[in-house]
C-alpha cells in the first residue's frame, strides 16, 4: 500500500508551472514574431489581448512568480538601489527591478535569466481596486517612453442597482476605448469572434475551478488555499489559452476523486482555517508544509474564493465586455464595500466549516490591507472564532518571521481546542 503523505497537495496543478514557464519563454520571442507586447497591471485583460493577437506580461503575476521561485529579493534590491522605497507595493518594486535590468539601466552581473523579459510596446493599468497599479504603470511608461492606457473601474460604495449599472456602463465604455487603442497600435480590426471563443474557454475553466473550490466544503477538504493559489494562472494570466479549460477540468476531477475516497489535502485534518491576505509567495511551500505539520488545513480565503471572477456562471460570450465589467466591479472582493466584504467572508467561513481565522496583513499591499484590521475584528466577533493575526507580504521576504508567525498559529489552534472543550467536543 502506498504510504500516505501528510502533505498531500494536488498533483494536477503541477502541470501549470510548465505552462507558465513556456508562456514566459514564448514571450521573449514575441517581437521576432512580429507581434506587440503590452505590460499589464492590476487586472490582466488576457482575453482581449489574445483576441487581438497581442502578447502580454502581467506585472502582478510576474512578481508573484518571482517570489515563488525565490527570486524576488534580487529584484527588490535592484529597485531599492535605484531609489524606490521599500514601502512601495512589492509587486511593483519587483517589476521595476526587472525593468531596470531589462533596459540595461543597471549592471546585471550574475542576474538570473528570469529577471530579463521583453520590452513592452505599451503599458495598461486596469484598476478595479487599487490606485497603486496606476502609479506602477506610470513608472513603466516613463521608463520605456511608451504609450499607456488607463482604465478606471468604479469602486463599490453603496451597492445599489443604479450604482452597479452605472459602473458597468462606464467600464464597458472604457473597454471599448481600450480596444480602439489596441487597434490603433496593431493596425488591425479587433477580432470580436475570437474574443467570444476565448470567453467560452475561459468560462469552462472558471466553472471547473468554481466547482472544484465548492468541493472543498467537504471534510476533510481535498485541496487547500495554497493549491488554489497554485491554480490561478489558468483563469487569469492564461485565461482563454489552449489547454486551460482541460487542465481545470482535470484538477476538478482529481478533487472529485479525493472526495470519493475521503482523502484530504492534508492527511490529518484537525483544524479548518480561513486565510485573509494575499498569497505568501516568498514562503509558499514552507508555510503550506508548516500548517500541514500542525494538522491545520487552510481551506479557503477571500483572495482565491472571492476573487478572479468568483461567479463564472455569469460569463456571457454574447456580451463579453459587460461580463468583464461586471466581474471587475461586483465579483471581485477587493472592490466590494466593507459590509459586502464582511458578508462575503462570513458566508465563506460558514460554508467551509471554519474553526479559526488567519489574518496575514500584506504590508505593502494597501488594497488587501486597507480594511483588514477592521475586518478581522468584525468577522471574528460575528463568528465567535479565534484569530491569528500576523504580518507578511505578497513578495517581500523581509516582512516574514516564520517563528513568530507560527507561534501565532499554534496559539490559534490552542484556542480552537479550548473552545471545543468548552463546547463538550474533543480537543485533538
Amino acid at each position, binding site marked *: 500500500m502506498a504510504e500516505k503523505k501528510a502533505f498531500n497537495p494536488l498533483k494536477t496543478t503541477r502541470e501549470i508551472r510548465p505552462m507558465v514557464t513556456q508562456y514566459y519563454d514564448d514571450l521573449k520571442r514575441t517581437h521576432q514574431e512580429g507581434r506587440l507586447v503590452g505590460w499589464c497591471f492590476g487586472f490582466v485583460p488576457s482575453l482581449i489581448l489574445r483576441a487581438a493577437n497581442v502578447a502580454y506580461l502581467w506585472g502582478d503575476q510576474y512578481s508573484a512568480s518571482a517570489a515563488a521561485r525565490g527570486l524576488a529579493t534580487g529584484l527588490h534590491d535592484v529597485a531599492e538601489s535605484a*531609489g524606490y522605497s521599500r514601502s512601495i507595493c512589492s509587486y511593483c518594486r519587483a517589476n521595476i527591478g526587472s525593468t531596470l535590468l531589462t533596459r540595461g539601466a543597471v549592471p546585471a552581473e550574475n542576474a538570473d535569466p528570469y529577471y530579463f523579459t521583453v520590452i513592452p510596446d505599451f503599458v495598461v493599468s486596469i484598476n478595479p481596486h487599487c*490606485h*497603486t497599479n*496606476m502609479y506602477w504603470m506610470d513608472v513603466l511608461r516613463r521608463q520605456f517612453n511608451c504609450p499607456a492606457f488607463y482604465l478606471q473601474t468604479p469602486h463599490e460604495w453603496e451597492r445599489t442597482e443604479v450604482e452597479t449599472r452605472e459602473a458597468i456602463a462606464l467600464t464597458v465604455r472604457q473597454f471599448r476605448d481600450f480596444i480602439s487603442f489596441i487597434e490603433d497600435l496593431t493596425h488591425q480590426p479587433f477580432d470580436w469572434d475570437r474574443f467570444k471563443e476565448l470567453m467560452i474557454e475561459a468560462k469552462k475553466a472558471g466553472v471547473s475551478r468554481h466547482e472544484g473550490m465548492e468541493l472543498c466544503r467537504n471534510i476533510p477538504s481535498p485541496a487547500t488555499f495554497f493549491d488554489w493559489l497554485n491554480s490561478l494562472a489558468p483563469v487569469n494570466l492564461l485565461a482563454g489559452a489552449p489547454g486551460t479549460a482541460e487542465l481545470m477540468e482535470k484538477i476538478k476531477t482529481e478533487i472529485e476523486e479525493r472526495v470519493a475516497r475521503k482523502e484530504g489535502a492534508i492527511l490529518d485534518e484537525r483544524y479548518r482555517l480561513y486565510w485573509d491576505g494575499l498569497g505568501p509567495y516568498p514562503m509558499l511551500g514552507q508555510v503550506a508544509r508548516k500548517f500541514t505539520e500542525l494538522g491545520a488545513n487552510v481551506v479557503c480565503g477571500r483572495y482565491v474564493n472571492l476573487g478572479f471572477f468568483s461567479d463564472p456562471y455569469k460569463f456571457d460570450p454574447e456580451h463579453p465586455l459587460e461580463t468583464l465589467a461586471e466581474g471587475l466591479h461586483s465579483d471581485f472582493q477587493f472592490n466590494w464595500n466593507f*459590509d459586502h466584504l464582511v458578508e462575503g467572508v462570513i458566508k465563506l467561513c460558514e460554508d467551509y466549516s471554519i474553526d479559526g481565522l488567519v489574518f496575514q496583513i500584506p504590508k505593502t499591499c*494597501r*488594497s488587501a*490591507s486597507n480594511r483588514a*484590521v*477592521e475586518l478581522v475584528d468584525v468577522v471574528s466577533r460575528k463568528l465567535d472564532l479565534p484569530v491569528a493575526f500576523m504580518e507578511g507580504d505578497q513578495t517581500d521576504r523581509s516582512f516574514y518571521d516564520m517563528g513568530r508567525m507560527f507561534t501565532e498559529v499554534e496559539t490559534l489552534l490552542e484556542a480552537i481546542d479550548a473552545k471545543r472543550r468548552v463546547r463538550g467536543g474533543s480537543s485533538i
Partner: protein
Amino acid sequence: MIKNMSKFSDSLVRPYERIAQWKEDNNKLVVGCLPMYFPEELVHASGAVPFVMQESDELITLGSRHIDSFFCRFVRSVVDLAAKGKLDFLDLLIVPDTCVQQRGMAQVMRHLRTNIPVELIQFPIQIGVDSAVNHARQCLEKVRVRLQQLTGNEVSDGQIAKSILVHKENRALLKRVYQLRKERPGLLRGRDVMEIVQSSMVMPKEEHSEHLKVLLAELEEPQASTGERVRLCISGHLCSAPKVDVLDLIEEMGAVIVDDDLYTGFRYFAEEREDKGSPMEQLARRYVYRTVPCPTRFDPGNDWRSYLVNMAKKAQAQGIIVLIQRHCEPHLTWYPDIKDALSAAKIRCLMIETEHEAFSLGEEKTRIQKLVETIRG
C-alpha cells in the same frame, strides 16, 4: 518679524476643536473634505462650511485598532481622531478618492462612526483630457444632490457662481503673498507661508481673506533685507502639512525658501481657469486641468519632473528639498525620476521622509547643512 501672523497660526492650534466650537457658536453645518483638490466652493454654496481635514498632533493610539501601521501618517491620524470620537461634530465627510489608502479609510470610517455620513466621490483618475471633464462634472452633481439633502438648501448655479468668486478672491490674495515672497525672499518664514495657506483650509474663506488683506497691507511696506542666503524650493508632502520644525531647520541652516508645490502651499490654490461654461463646468475643468502635476492622478501631458526643474529655475533656486510622507506611494514612485531630472538639470536635491511621530532632527540638520554648504561651495 511680521506682526499680523497670529490669526493664521492660532487657527491651526487644535483646529478640530476650534471648528466644532465655531459650528456651535454660528449654528452652521460643517462638511469635512479630505485632501486633495475637492472643490470647496460647492460646500460653501450650500451654506455649510468646508473644512479640509488636517493631520493632528496627537499620538496615534486607538486608530491602530482600525488601520495598519504601513499607511501614511495622515490617514492614520484621521482614523485615530475618528476612533477617539473627535470628528463627531462633522455633518458630512467627503472623500475624493485620492488614493487606495484614503479609499480604505473611507470604508473603515463609515463602519467605525456610523453617526458621520461619509461620501466617497470617485473623481476621474486620468485627468488632463476632455473626457474627464464630464466624469468630474457627474461626480460634482452627485455632491450637489447630497449637499442639498444635508442642508435642505437648494444649491443653485447662481450660488455656486458666488462661492466661486469668494474662493477666487482668496486664491488671488494667496498668490499675492507668494508673489511678494518671490520678490523678497525671507520676507516671511517658511512656516509662516505654510500657516497662511493651511489656515485657509480650516476657517471660513471670507474670514481668511480679511486676515490676508490685513497681512498684505503690512507685507507691502518696505521690509529689512535678510541678507544672502541659499535659495531653495520645497516640494511635495501631499495631503498634509510637514511639521514646521523641518521648515525652521532649513532656514536655521542658512537657506531661504523661495517657492514650493506643497499641498499646504502653492498646490492648494494654484489652479485657475477661464470663467467659461456653467459654474459646475468651471469647477470640473479646474479639477481636470492642472498647473501643478499630481502623482495621485494619471496626467501624462503634465510631467512633474519638468515642472520642478522649471519651478527651481524661475525661482532662481539652487536646490530643492523634497518632503515625502512615509508610505505615500504616489510620491515615492515618482521620487527616483524627480531626483534624476533635477540631477540632469544640475539642481541639487535632498529628500526627507517624514513621520507622524516626532523624530530627532539631528540627522536632518546634518543633511540640510551639508546641502546648503555644498551649494555655497
